[in-house]
């Protein structure tokens, strides 16, 4: 009986949270076009999201490029398809690995950061104070952060892709004497707008989801300081799940538009 009750309460809380998230999203879209625009705060958040994550994304992307090429190279050589390695690596990185890895890292770094920051602001009643002082906390804290992640994640993904491809080129150059020109000719010969466009569009959604989940979790933090940790943790977990769901949907939609 108690188990059944807990199941119902879990489903109940899931549905409530989904509904709250939907309201939260609706409120974001309502606030985003309404004056005054917190441009300064937006730039600050952009700096926090973009510049401060670049090193992490760069290192991860570089290592992914290296490792991916190193791992695929022996098998491709076994098949005698060594010359297809740049094409294979570039398509994998541009289409899937680059966006999803970058987004997951950002979910971990930025999502948890936003969740913890807004959560601590909530539990220390800074948000309430903002409301009292006449500043719209949603607009100042949430809209700027969500916009920043939405616009910065795609840039981070593009840079991460470029660094990953460079890492892949380094391995190809060291192991197989492939020139820079030849490698990138191969890469862009195999790439198409059908590879590039959907993956770039979906990164905007990734950024939006990371900011939205992080802000939502932080904005509605409960149960004091212990809740801050929960908010930060659940922001990462839920953002990651949402990222994969968006990725799946994006691939389905891209398949409809670019199907052959």
């Amino acid at each position, binding site marked *: 009986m108690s188990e059944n009750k807990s199941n119902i309460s879990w489903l109940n809380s899931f549905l409530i949270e989904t509904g709250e998230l939907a309201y939260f999203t609706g409120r974001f879209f309502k606030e985003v076009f309404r004056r005054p625009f917190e441009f300064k705060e937006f730039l600050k958040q952009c*700096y926090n999201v*973009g510049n401060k994550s670049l090193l992490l994304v760069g290192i991860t992307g570089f290592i992914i490029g290296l490792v991916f090429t190193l791992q695929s190279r022996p098998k491709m050589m076994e098949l005698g398809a060594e010359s297809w390695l740049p094409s294979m690596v570039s398509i994998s990185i541009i289409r899937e690995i680059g966006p999803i890895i970058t987004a997951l890292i950002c979910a971990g770094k930025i999502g948890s950061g936003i969740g913890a920051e807004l959560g601590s602001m909530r539990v220390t009643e800074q948000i309430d104070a903002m409301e009292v002082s006449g500043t719209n906390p949603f607009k100042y804290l949430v809209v700027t952060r969500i916009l920043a992640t939405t616009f910065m994640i795609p*840039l*981070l993904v593009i*840079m991460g892709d*470029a660094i990953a491809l460079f890492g892949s080129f380094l391995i190809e150059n060291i192991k197989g004497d492939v020139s820079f020109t030849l490698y990138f000719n191969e890469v*862009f*010969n195999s790439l198409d707008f059908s590879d*590039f466009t959907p993956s770039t569009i979906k990164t905007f959604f990734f950024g939006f989801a990371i900011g939205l989940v992080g802000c939502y979790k932080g904005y509605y933090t409960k149960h004091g300081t212990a809740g801050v940790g929960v908010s930060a943790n659940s922001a990462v977990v839920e953002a990651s799940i949402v990222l994969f769901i968006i990725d799946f949907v994006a691939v389905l939609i891209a398949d409809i538009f670019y199907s052959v």
Partner: protein
Amino acid sequence: MEKSIYQKLKLGIFVLTGITFFVIAIWLIGSKQNLFGNSSDLYAVFNNVNGLKTGNNIRCSGIKVGTVKSIQMINDTFIVVKMSVESDITKHIKTDAKAVITTDGLVGNMIVNILPGAGSQTTLQSGDTLRSFSRIRTDEMLNTLSVTNENAALLTAELLKITKEISSGKGIVGAIIKDSTITDDVKQTLHFLRKTSYESSIAIKNVNNLVSSLNKKDNLLGVIRDTALSNQIKNIVSNIEKSSQDIETVINNLNTTITSANSTIENVKDGKGVINYLSNDATLVKKIDHTVSNLDSAMIKINTAGIKLNDNLEALKHNWLLRGYYKNLEKEKEKEKIKKK
């Protein structure tokens, strides 16, 4: 405040870098599809495009010159392929150039390959239609291959039968492999063949020596080859010919003589004339024989008488009565000799 400007600068660099990468990627991918350069549209009509897709590459002499812009089916046998080709390249494509759909590598994408024309023709303009032909398709190739496979299976089955028979020692090949006596025979034959060939090589050597010696003049053939000698031989032959003609006339004469002799003999046989009488009458022979013997004795007597007469004549020469006469005779004889001189 300073920190804020520094942050903005860094953010600006970050955003610009990101956008630059984005633009470069768009440019590179777009230029591959001729989105930014000047391009001309060319058409080609095929009856089967073999899975060609919009965006597939166009190649001319191995260089990528454009992409497939659209594929439109006019009816069940005509499919029009619209191709976007770089304008700089179009001037090198002549009106007799041909378009053919092939694969890029063994398992690669389909491509349209433009095969250049003779070069003396006029160049194509934008909107022109290229001539096209279809290469043998993979499914057609596979059909042919399946027939070949069936034939190969039949052949191998037959081969299996043959090899079984050979291994069981049937037939000539089987006998050669299985029967040891044949091997010995073959070995022996080979031995003799080797011997024969050795000896024949010696013989050929000798023949060679002979032939080379024939070129010298110290032998029969050399003599024959001598022109002076051959002229002499010719003379001899002509003389022999003459002689033979003479002999022929002699023989003819002899023939006539013999015929006349024959007729004489015939007469003799018939008992006409003296010869027949002489040869056939035995008493006459006896008489003649007797007469001859008488003649012999008479001749002997005459001889003795002659000798006696010679003695008498010698005695007369020395007789003083007749000595003068004989001296005169001798003198007259000497006078005649002087006169003759």
